[in-house]
């Protein structure tokens, strides 16, 4: 059994009368590729936001690699090896694609030259490799705000990847990406994550992607995990079919 990387106990959070997270007990082992599925408003992104420090839970705890990270800031959680991409891509709009990745790469180093060009103070090789990985190498000179939606998503994921995290959380990474490119992108991403030994969680609505790339699925319904297990088992669960897939 692999080491438990992420664990939550009794995690809860409500917004007014809406329970977004209802006593979630959850464990993620190193090396897993977990897909989180559920209808809009089921609490998937809220769970991700709590685990990454954007929101504080009203109850419960989050542990990363055995350390209690409940309530820590996003910056501190990122520094511990958790990176994420966002439902709405969070980019540096006026910087070029390459500059966005260079800034991300600079976060991996503590001592940075105040008067040294960023190209010389970060690992440019890994930046260029990541650009090729997400197929943005030919657009590296463009300002991020000029990218079409799908490529903005890719850049968002790339900025998280370049941090060399132990856990990468992707929130709807393929939404906005064309159907023809989705599978190719996920194939490349998952291969890269395997090579780099990165555990991943991806929130996803496309069940083809989920079935193909996840080693495990957790289905969210009304703030709770309704089903959790291998893809085939979860996707055939009657409650999941009724409330999530909609069959």
């Amino acid at each position, binding site marked *: 059994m692999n080491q438990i990387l992420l664990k939550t106990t009794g995690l809860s959070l409500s917004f007014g009368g809406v329970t977004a997270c209802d006593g979630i007990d959850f464990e993620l082992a190193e090396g897993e590729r977990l897909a989180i599925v559920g209808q809009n408003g089921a609490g998937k992104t809220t769970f991700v936001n709590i685990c990454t420090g954007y929101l504080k839970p009203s109850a419960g705890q989050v542990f990363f690699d055995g350390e209690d990270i409940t309530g820590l800031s996003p910056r501190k959680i990122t520094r511990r090896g958790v990176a994420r991409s966002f439902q709405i891509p969070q980019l540096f709009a006026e910087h070029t694609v390459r500059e966005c990745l260079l*800034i991300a790469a600079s976060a991996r180093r503590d001592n940075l030259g105040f008067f040294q060009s960023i190209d010389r103070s970060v690992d440019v090789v890994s930046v260029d490799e990541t650009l090729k990985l997400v197929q943005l190498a030919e657009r590296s000179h463009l300002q991020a705000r000029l990218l079409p939606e799908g490529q903005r998503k890719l850049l968002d994921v790339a900025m998280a990847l370049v941090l060399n995290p132990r856990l990468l959380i992707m929130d709807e990474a393929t939404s906005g990406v064309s159907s023809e490119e989705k599978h190719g992108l996920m194939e490349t991403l998952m291969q890269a994550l395997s090579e780099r030994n990165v555990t991943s969680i991806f929130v996803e609505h496309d069940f083809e992607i989920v079935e193909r790339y996840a080693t495990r699925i957790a289905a969210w319904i009304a703030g709770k995990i309704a089903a959790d297990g291998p893809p085939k088992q979860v996707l055939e669960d009657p409650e999941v079919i009724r409330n999530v897939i909609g069959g």
Partner: protein
Amino acid sequence: MFIRLVTVALIILTVIIAHSFPWLKTPVIFSLCNGLAVLGVIVLIRAGQVSFGHAMYSCAAGYTVVFLARAYQLDGLLLIGLATMVATAFSALLGLFIVRYRGIFFGMLNLAFSMVLYSIISKFTTVTGGTDGLSFSRPQLAGFILERDAFETALLYMVLACALICGLLAQRYFESAPGQALGAIKTNETRLEYLGISAKHVFWMGYLFSGFLAGLGGSLFAIAQGLVTPEAGYWVRSGEFVFIAILGGSGHAIGAYLGAFIFEFVRFYAAALLTGAWQITLGIVLIVIIFLAPEGLVGMLTRFRLPARR
């Protein structure tokens, strides 16, 4: 490449003016000093923040110069170094508090602190000379006692050297990791945090650098003028720095000096030719620049590219 040519042209022009038109030495010195302070404002504009009180650091440096000069008759270089350190320390201290704020709150907090400083300086007449300010004798420069003409020429070259070095340093800072992260504050501070970078720390470092630049400009200005008054820290002065920063553009460090030169010389000639209406002239110049080149003079320049060689 084009920017480099403009920089070289500006340096050559400065030297020519200094030797061919001696009466223009002082405006050129003042332009370069103001350019340094404006460069400090540009550092913050790159983070999307505008300070309406940065003249307080120039003022703090200026009064440090005058107090030390009157008390100890120190060499000019030492006065500049110490005064700049005082201004930098002042910005480091205030910055710890101010960099927690953004937008209009950041702008107004800087203004508020600058007005507190202005009031203190204006009221403590026995110490600061009040609104009349304090003057001091021409100091030695690097151990040399110089007559007025020689002093001005030496000061011109010194200020030019400082402007060039600080311009290069600023440009290198803009291209560095901390400088790029500073620019990212403008567009997405949340993402910086999610990369593990402290936006507050990055901003504070930028604020420190901007305080240093404003302090250096203020100390050189004080040495050039031989007199410091509370007006050096008044909000109007800070507003001029912002005006010049917009005029010159924040896309490159040279913008600070271009803007400062245009501002100083338009004011100089407009005051001489259109007494009482020089502000209108400056205002019209700024309006025209904003319409034609919203990114300032630097923005206009960077649109020009030399044709590629075959």
